[in-house]
């Protein structure tokens, strides 16, 4: 920014007018501040450093094109270190001391639930740009990631039709894994299947011999892996070396932690993932985004779905602020309530649903081959985040600031 000010002053000196310089300096004094709280170190860093880079890329592009309503976008970035207490600490700091206009924050659902009460308490405005277990009905939050009705309602019936009706879930043992497993159970039952077994793995566990044997004992037709963090990803290598050889399905793996790039083939053979973006998607928009990303960050190991969610979130925010002509949350929510906040994202067209403030997505079914190449057997366009709205969450009328699950739906009026 100081560079642009300098350039402005130099231009002003050259043309003999100080007007240009002073308007630029004025604009620089009054930026729109965007807080970025993401894990740049710790167990989740592999999946989340790309999110920070995506936000930087979008902010650079927007600033180069003149900012938001002529105001530059300024990022206030902190490393939350894969630690829930850091989220609380830095959320207080960006809202109280840095006084940001909006915060983009969080990877794990535990961290989101750690900071969400603070956003509510200080009347902040936060984007959660991550796929998750769904159900957050909170007017202070916008969720751009995919939710179970988008990822599991597509994935599980496909897998049951292709491989059989006996399903085993191996999930991380915290709110994300537990609630996602509940969704899997519900959808398997609705489709006439049966749970062959379930196991929940504490975060940070890296040894899976016994879990592998439990799976072999239960003899499922396929395994739903909802493993989170880099330690738990060791499962694939260990299962492959024990020759488990079962198809796998996931809403988080590959699309976040690019396990197919990190592990030696064929350990992720026959893994099916529903994701709204991964860098292999072969469309002009996706290729363009990927090329821009690589030009700005050449050493980025992988452009994952959360990077795309974060990138498009910056543009959605720009659009909402410009239409509301304000950065105030209440003004922005009036724009959301119109129901036509949409954009052409790298994945395809996305829109914000006014009732839940979640987002519609194009869902790609990605299949990992024996050589770890990706193919896309199926694509679902414009899948809406319908569950919250149907269950009774309507943020245009009432803001309960709560999270709901299938077994704990919103209270009936």
């Amino acid at each position, binding site marked *: 920014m100081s560079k642009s000010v300098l350039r402005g002053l130099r231009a002003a000196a050259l043309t003999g007018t100080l007007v240009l310089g002073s308007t630029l300096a004025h604009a620089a004094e009054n930026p729109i501040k965007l807080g970025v709280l993401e894990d740049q170190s710790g167990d989740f860093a592999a999946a989340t450093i790309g999110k920070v880079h995506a936000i930087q890329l979008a902010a650079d592009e927007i600033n180069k094109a003149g900012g938001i309503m002529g105001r530059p976008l300024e990022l206030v970035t902190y490393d939350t270190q894969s630690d829930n207490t850091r989220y609380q600490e830095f959320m207080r700091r960006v809202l109280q001391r840095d006084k940001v206009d909006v915060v983009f924050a969080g990877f794990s659902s535990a961290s989101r639930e750690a900071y969400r009460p603070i956003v509510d308490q200080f009347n902040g405005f936060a984007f959660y740009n991550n796929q998750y277990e769904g159900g957050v009905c909170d007017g202070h939050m916008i969720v751009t990631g995919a939710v179970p009705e988008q990822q599991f309602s597509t994935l599980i019936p496909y897998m049951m039709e292709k491989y059989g009706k006996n399903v085993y879930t191996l999930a991380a043992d915290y709110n994300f894994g537990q609630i996602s497993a509940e969704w899997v159970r519900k959808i398997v039952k609705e489709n006439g299947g049966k749970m062959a077994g379930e196991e929940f793995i504490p975060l940070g566990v890296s040894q899976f011999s016994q879990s592998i044997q439990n799976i072999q004992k239960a003899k499922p037709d396929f395994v739903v892996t909802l493993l989170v963090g880099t330690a738990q990803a060791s499962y694939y290598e*260990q299962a492959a070396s024990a020759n488990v050889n079962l198809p796998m399905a996931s809403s988080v793996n590959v699309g976040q932690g690019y396990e197919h790039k990190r592990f030696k083939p064929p350990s992720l053979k026959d893994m099916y993932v529903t994701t709204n973006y991964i860098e292999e998607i072969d469309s002009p928009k996706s290729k363009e985004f990927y090329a821009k990303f690589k030009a700005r960050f050449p050493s980025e190991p992988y452009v994952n779905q959360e990077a795309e969610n974060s990138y498009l979130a910056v543009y959605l925010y720009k659009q909402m602020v410009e239409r509301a002509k304000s950065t105030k949350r209440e003004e922005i929510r009036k724009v959301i309530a119109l129901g036509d906040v949409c954009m052409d994202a790298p994945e395809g067209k996305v829109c914000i649903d006014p009732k839940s403030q979640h987002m519609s997505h194009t869902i790609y079914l990605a299949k990992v081959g024996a050589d770890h190449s990706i193919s896309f057997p199926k694509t679902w366009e414009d899948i809406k985040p319908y569950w919250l709205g149907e269950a009774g969450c309507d943020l245009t009328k009432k803001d309960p600031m709560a999270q709901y699950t299938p077994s704990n739906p919103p209270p009936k009026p």
Partner: protein
Amino acid sequence: MDIATHVFSAFYQFGDAFAFLVLSACGLAVIFGMMGVINLAHGEFIMCGAYVTAATVHAGLPLPLGILAGTIVSALVGVLVELAVIRHLYDRPLDTIVATWGLSLIATQGTLIMVGSTMAGVGTPFGSFQVGDYSYSIYRIVLFCAALGVLAALYALFNWTRFGVLARATIQVPHMAAALGVDTRLIYSLTFACGAGLAGLAGGLYAPTMTLVPTMGATFIMEAFVTVVIGGADVFLGTAPAGGVLAVVKSAMTSWQGQLFGQIGLLVAVIIVVRVLPKGISGFVLRERT
């Protein structure tokens, strides 16, 4: 399913847990159990071994040589760390906690910045075999044998070699050893390097089976410390039975109720052993003998 299948599966799970506990712990058993240095950077020595192993295998070396390279590099790093930091803190055990914790933070973050957030895996060798309904990884049997081999080698090193005798003498009564002409500084350095090298060996052995990230050391550290704490001061007589007891508890609880209960069972067993045998299992065994 017949009884033989059950017996083999129980033994395999025990062996797997035993190998993980013993290999995680043996380097720490030398540095913490024997020398009394509370080494919170133990996990990062393991990470160092794993990273060097993976890097050399990617460069074209066969896996056993890669593991050897990982072990040697970790031992050399151990020498440097001992010379630069640990040497000045032998009579300040609490300060070693702060110093080694700082080292571990520097190592984790330094690796993240220099090598990146992940490193490509090398793949587990040897494939699998079938017993009854279950298939098993052959490499896990190799790990179990490696754990037994390391224990045997440690026993031989500290009981039958001149270096082992000098090391034990130096650590028990340093001024007496010095008076008898032992270069105690050198012995301290070599012993610390031995512990660091063992940590590197554990990292190298587990590198093919795990995700390679800068924080990977953290998944070893809890198991390593509890094994050494309940094992006590003697490397062989402590680590071997401690690994055995904890592996029985952990594999039985995990097969009965899953991973969470395996961890709970492990920690409850640790609390009970520490309460009943404050000097660890080796303290109990040695007192019985004398």
